[in-house]
């Protein structure tokens, strides 16, 4: 069953009339990887998935699965299987016939295809419902049947289009764990489209952050979170403060820049020309309250809001030309030295926490 295939996307574009949904993206998904395409709605992630699946024609570029170029092959000949957002189970067929559908299309005789479908339902622990219709199932059960139907073709890659979006939050987390377990046991490549960064971080071996039809960053979850490549990634993943400014010079291997209409900050990074615009990201939970030992790695601002969140406290601070700077402090640290709204507090962070963000070359 496990014969995972590498998916290689080579400068693939999708153009609808005048609008470009996907702009010459290139991506290599290693065999057996759980890959999440992450981005806001309209970023081209679903179009990308549908082009891999063959449900959308490819305007230019190529898609390779394993050793075959599948660009012009019909969906069923690609070795991929797709699970649709609303599961797209056939309402007029019972679960066995739903799962056996692709075998029926191939002309497998009734006895054999029903037996194999029942095996597949057993794998998903749905055999007790085998003679029911999809409408008689809950969302989570429907998802299992959809998985069984997709997997019966022995795909090399499973493509999932927002598989968890139709489930309630509790079920979402449970099915998430099941998906991960399934992927590990099958060992095949999963490509999962989602707009939830939490889902992507929980599941993926490889997160591909997309925006405006382009890939902003493709990296393991930890890299994406700790070293966001662009301002978009930092903002989309959350828990980062993004500060923009203009470079004024360099000092001790750090870039020094002025925040527009405010103070001067420094960040680790390659020397850039003075006058160039720059964006940096600072993890909200890596900021501490206190004077900065070195200049440029902190500022003093006025607390504009305080939110208690249990284990942490969220402070919103404004100052040095930065309107909304978020600081997450440990509850024990906060209550040891509490601050109030309107207080001026000094903030500081370490040099390795200020990350210079790149830009996509257009």
């Amino acid at each position, binding site marked *: 069953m496990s014969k995972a295939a590498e998916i290689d996307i080579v400068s693939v574009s999708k153009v609808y009339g005048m609008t470009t949904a996907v702009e010459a993206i290139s991506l290599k998904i290693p065999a057996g990887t759980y890959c999440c395409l992450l981005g806001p709605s309209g970023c081209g992630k679903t179009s990308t998935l549908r082009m891999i699946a063959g449900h959308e024609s490819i305007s230019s570029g190529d898609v390779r699965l394993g050793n075959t170029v599948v660009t012009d092959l019909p969906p069923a000949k690609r070795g991929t*299987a797709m699970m649709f957002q609303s599961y797209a189970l056939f309402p007029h067929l019972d679960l066995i016939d739903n799962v056996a559908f692709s075998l029926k*299309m191939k002309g497998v005789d009734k006895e054999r295809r029903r037996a194999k479908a029942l095996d597949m339902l057993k794998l998903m622990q749905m055999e007790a419902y085998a003679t029911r219709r999809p409408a008689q199932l809950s969302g989570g059960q429907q998802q299992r049947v959809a998985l069984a*139907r997709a997997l019966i073709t022995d795909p090399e890659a499973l493509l999932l289009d927002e598989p968890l979006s139709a489930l309630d939050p509790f079920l979402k987390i449970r099915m998430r764990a099941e998906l991960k377990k399934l992927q590990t046991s099958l060992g095949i490549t999963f490509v999962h489209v989602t707009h939830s960064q939490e889902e992507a971080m929980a599941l993926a071996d490889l997160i591909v952050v997309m925006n405006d039809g382009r890939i902003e960053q493709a990296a393991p979850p930890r890299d994406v979170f700790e070293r966001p490549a662009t301002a978009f990634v930092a903002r989309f993943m959350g828990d980062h403060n993004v500060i923009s400014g203009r470079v004024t010079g360099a000092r001790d291997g750090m870039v020094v820049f002025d925040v527009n209409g405010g103070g001067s900050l420094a960040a680790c990074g390659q020397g850039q020309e003075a006058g160039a615009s720059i964006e940096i990201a600072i993890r909200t939970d890596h900021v501490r309250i206190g004077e900065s030992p070195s200049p440029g790695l902190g500022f003093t601002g006025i607390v504009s809001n305080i939110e208690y969140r249990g284990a942490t406290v969220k402070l919103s601070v404004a100052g040095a030309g930065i309107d909304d700077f978020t600081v997450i402090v440990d509850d024990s640290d906060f209550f040891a030295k509490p601050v109030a709204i309107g207080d001026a507090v000094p903030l500081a962070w370490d040099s390795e926490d200020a990350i210079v963000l790149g830009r996509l070359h257009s």
Partner: protein
Amino acid sequence: MTVALERPAIAAAAPSKRGRLSLSAVTPYLQSAPLALILGAFLLLPIIMIVVVSFWDYDFAAMYPDFLTTNYSDVLGSWVTWKTYLNTIKFAAIVWALTLFIGFWVAYFLAFHIRTTAMQMVLFLVCTVPFLTSNIIRMISWIPVLGRNGLINSTLVHMGLVPKPIEWLLYSEFAVVLAMVHLYTLFMVTPIFNTLMRIDRSLFEAARDAGASGWQVLWNVVIPLAKPGMAIGTIFVVTLVMADFSTVQVMSGGQSASVALMMKNQMSLLQYPAAAANAVVLLVLVLLMVAGILRIVDIRREL
């Protein structure tokens, strides 16, 4: 303590609850009364009268209240009636098959090949334009087309394709079927279009993903899911054809018969009880057909 506290509350609630109960008991009957009255007066009562009259005696001038079964034995015992019934069922079967075929493909085209909803509505309204005139006019307008010196015959003769006008175009069973298909296809298009529009488009992609070819998608997904619409259209068409007399009379030129036409003739001879017996038999037959259709296809999903 709690019991003592609760008791007066219950006592106070009881009378008002009883008052509300009596009102709420009547409400559903009041709400259903208008429809019950209309159906009773205009559907149930006439049917009861027909059933009653079907047992009466009659002669050339009057009807006599009685309880005779001779009307039924006349209907069921005569070879002519059987032939007429068979003929009517034959028309129903042919017209049903043709309207189903044409109706399905028209609906399919409208639902899947017209991309914008606005265009779908426009084309659908175009389909209904003939309904702005009466049945009779639409039927009669076939005569100048199909007649001996009509459009088709004169064209064919002019082109030299046939030496003399084709006789069977008009005043034949062909003409009856043609006119009926023309009159009733829309009754098939509408419900099928409705069911096709409700099919989730991602089902087709799921089928394609499973390796289904275009015809396999049609046979395994579209047609099964369109069945309720087909059943509703079938009920419309079958009941309309079974009850038709004007089309048969006009288009066959009196050479073909249908049950309804037979009843019309009986009524014009003042044989009302015989016509009533005929009507009861026809009603039972049509109801059996509808029951059969409903047994095969579950249309509750559509209602």
